């Protein structure tokens, strides 16, 4: 595919007229999707898609066309020439773009993490065998992901990986469930077997009598997955320079210096794990580390090149949506193997679900408990709880009510597959929070 991308790039760049600049982004994947219900196959198939984004720049005007490719050069050549003509014909109609910006320096590099070791039929058989006596539901997404960039100024970037993401829940007869995820570049049967064993052990605990809890304030442990849901909501504008300027950020009061979080809280955008590509869709190279919140104080936003021009600041090569793709929360001191004793009396929350804002201005978020949530008394599991709605501000969760963060972080690979497989991830510890408000 890399050679094919170079070939079509050359074709297009050779057909440019004077003063035209062309930026190309390719996104491709070959993925097997195997969907399970009741530990059997619900739907299974393969998706092979290649998407090319062509952005033409001409006299401070810009126009973008997104097309699918066949990877048959003869067929694609016709489509590419037609698309180029279309862009050339339409672009004069547009007004000049005052925030037009693209990388003019050449920073080419290539990353290839493929090893062609994934046998998806074999993996599926392993999953079916492992869960054959259990009520498992979920999805295996497995295959290659490609992101590429080139421009007519001579830059070329490539990011290719092969990976799988098995995301599943296992249900007890009571209707309660445990959710887990196994994602990596190679399938390790021993790792899978240990996760399976963990599933079976947790199912025994969750199959106990439901503990009915009522609305009120509770001391809670938020697992890395649960905390990640809250951080996802904070990231909905919270770290965006533009959102903070126009007031749609849930952290705008922090960005204005009026609010702080607990000193234990340090967030950064950390791309050093290599899961997301380091090149921006307009060719800028992203820094490995961008410090967002340091010791509870808002330090820096993610600033896209367009925002930089609009607000006359320097950008940090953030994508135009200005939210983290690889957020990192610094670990704390609570021993990860002593969470129950640290919590002592409270609610152990493995997963939260369907979060949204109750009051965005003030960073207030609502959502619900979902998989693997237990009542804990005297440092021991008492049984699963009923589904509860919470309603709490990030200034409490990460502020005065934060009792501590765990000493180990977990890498969470985003299992999202809207349009294409995600390359986002988070690296997050767990947290213990007091007076966490349950409302319904």
């Amino acid at each position, binding site marked *: 595919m890399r050679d094919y991308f170079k070939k079509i790039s050359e074709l297009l760049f050779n057909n440019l007229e004077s003063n035209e600049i062309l930026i190309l982004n390719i996104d491709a994947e070959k*993925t097997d*999707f195997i*969907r*399970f*219900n*009741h530990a*059997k*196959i*619900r*739907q*299974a*198939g*393969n*998706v*092979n*898609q290649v998407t090319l984004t062509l952005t033409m720049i001409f006299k401070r005007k*810009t*126009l*973008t*066309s*997104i*097309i*699918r490719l*066949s*990877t*048959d050069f003869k*067929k694609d050549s016709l489509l590419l020439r037609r698309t180029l003509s279309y862009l050339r014909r339409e672009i004069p*109609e*547009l*007004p000049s*773009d005052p925030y037009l910006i693209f990388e003019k320096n050449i920073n080419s590099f290539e990353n290839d993490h493929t090893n062609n070791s994934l046998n998806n039929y074999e993996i599926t058989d392993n999953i079916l065998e492992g869960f054959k006596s259990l009520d498992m539901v979920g*999805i295996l997404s497995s295959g290659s992901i490609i992101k590429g960039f080139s421009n007519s100024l001579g830059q070329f970037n490539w990011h290719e990986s092969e990976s799988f993401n098995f995301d*599943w*829940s296992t*249900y007890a007869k009571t209707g309660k*469930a445990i*959710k887990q995820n196994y994602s990596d570049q190679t399938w390790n049967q021993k790792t899978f077997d240990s996760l399976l064993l963990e599933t079976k052990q947790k199912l025994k605990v969750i199959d106990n009598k439901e503990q009915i809890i009522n609305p009120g304030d509770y001391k809670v442990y938020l697992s890395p997955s649960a905390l990640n849901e809250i951080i996802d909501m904070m990231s909905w504008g919270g770290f965006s320079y533009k959102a903070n300027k*126009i*007031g*749609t950020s849930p952290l*705008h009061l922090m960005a204005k210096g009026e609010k702080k979080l607990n000193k234990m809280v340090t967030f950064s955008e950390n791309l050093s794990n290599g899961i997301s590509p380091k090149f921006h869709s307009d060719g800028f190279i992203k820094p490995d580390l961008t410090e967002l919140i340091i010791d509870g104080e808002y330090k820096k936003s993610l600033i896209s090149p367009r925002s930089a021009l*609009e607000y006359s600041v320097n950008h940090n090569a953030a994508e135009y949506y200005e939210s983290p793709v690889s957020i990192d929360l610094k670990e704390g001191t609570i021993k990860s193997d002593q969470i129950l004793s640290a919590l002592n009396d409270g609610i152990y929350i493995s997963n939260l*679900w*369907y979060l*949204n*804002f*109750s*009051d965005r*201005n003030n960073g*207030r978020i*609502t959502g*619900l408990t*979902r998989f693997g949530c237990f009542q804990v008394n005297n440092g021991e599991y008492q049984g699963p709880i009923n*589904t509860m*709605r919470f*309603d709490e*501000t990030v200034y409490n969760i990460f502020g005065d009510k934060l009792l501590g963060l765990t000493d180990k972080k977990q890498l969470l690979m985003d299992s999202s*597959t809207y349009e294409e497989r995600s390359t986002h991830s988070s690296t997050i510890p767990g947290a213990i929070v007091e007076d966490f408000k349950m*409302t*319904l």
Partner: protein
Amino acid sequence: MKDDFINTVKSLIPKVDYCSFRFVNKYTNVISATRGVVEPVTISEDDGLMVTVFNKGGYGYGATSNLTKKGISEAVNSAVEWAKFSEKKLTYFPDLKKMKSRVGNYYTNEDEHWSQVSTKDKTDYLISVNKALKSQPTISNWGASIRFNKIETLFMDTNDSNVRQKISYLLPQIVVSAEYKKEIQTRTFGGHAHARQLGYNFIDQIDMINKGKTLAQEAVELSKSPNCENKITQAVIAPDQMILQIHESIGHPLELDRILGDERNYAGSSFVTPDMFGNYQYGSELLNITFNPTLESELATYNFDDDGTNAEKKYLIKDGVLIRPIGGLFSSQRLGLDHVACSRSCNWNRPPIDRMGNINLEPGKDSFDEIIKSVEDGIYLETNNSWSIDDKRNKFQFGCEKGTLIKNGKFAGMVKNPSYRGITESFWKNLSKVGNGETNNILGTSNCGKGEPNQTIFVGHSTPICLFENVDVFGGV
């Protein structure tokens, strides 16, 4: 689709119990202007094919953007191979004899086509809307956009089915925020609600410039308004909030694949169980909900679903009693229930699953004025801005952009950050008045997410205003 191409495809049909080919061509054009500047314009043209195979108790699909003979052949092979692999490993295998040959078509009725208006005219119009929005100094953010989508599908199968459909829709959007003492309030139009299968004349009908002026004024007024009080009260809910209420607490819980457990790892299941159909009192006797793919200009109006099933109007809830689920031809067989034409896919690269189409609340008898006059102490809630509901679709919380207090049958001032929470099983039983046809709005949302692999699809909801008793309403921090 040219005949020689169709003949090529036909030559690739494998020797299996059943095979279908679903071609999708999806054209998207988004034009927007934000804070007085036209954003980069994007045009997307997406072509692809999904081959589906049922054979000897196995099922598989192959989807590709490679529409050459070689590419289609590879997709066929993928489908055949996965069907072979999944033999005797499937959750269920449908009765293929129930699948009929379908021949027909459907086209959106567009008075004025998107392509008849130049890009320049569209951008000039949106800049005019921007000027109307930035009407006061405290306006901190403003913008307007128009999204056009055209989705052409061709469905063919080994039953000699041949279905062609072309759905075009427009989604106009306006956003305006005002800041007062660091309190930011936002009013919007369109985002969650106002997508329609109409031609460009829809944009003229909306009059985005005057709509923008009104919204800007409301945002400024809201930013200076008190927070909504916490209390149990009567709530009159406008169509642009009712759409979410219907969507989340009726549409999703009635999806049969949720009830059957397919979605338990992602979108969730349902409090509805199979034994409830035909007898469960879902809401008050005023509640009538239809699956209606026949209402002209509504977003999910079509003649066939993506498995080729004929689309027709059917009641889901009649006089408050639950009648049938939203289950397609295949999944309905798993429970031996009647089906609706709801097996839908977001694109060529995702398989069809049970989806809402147009899920409508049928109008009642009361006029807008009669409903407001009947409220002694309550609130009128408009425009959704937050939604959250549990995985069984019971405990919900919704936020609205604008609340207007009602005292003794009259409006009595705006409140900001109005939200309400409740439980589906009791909430609909407190439906006490349903607005008449004059209060009815045909609405639609283009971003309903569900499924593994994930899919975002467009659904329609037509609804009048409604009055509910004993609603738990509250405000911001």
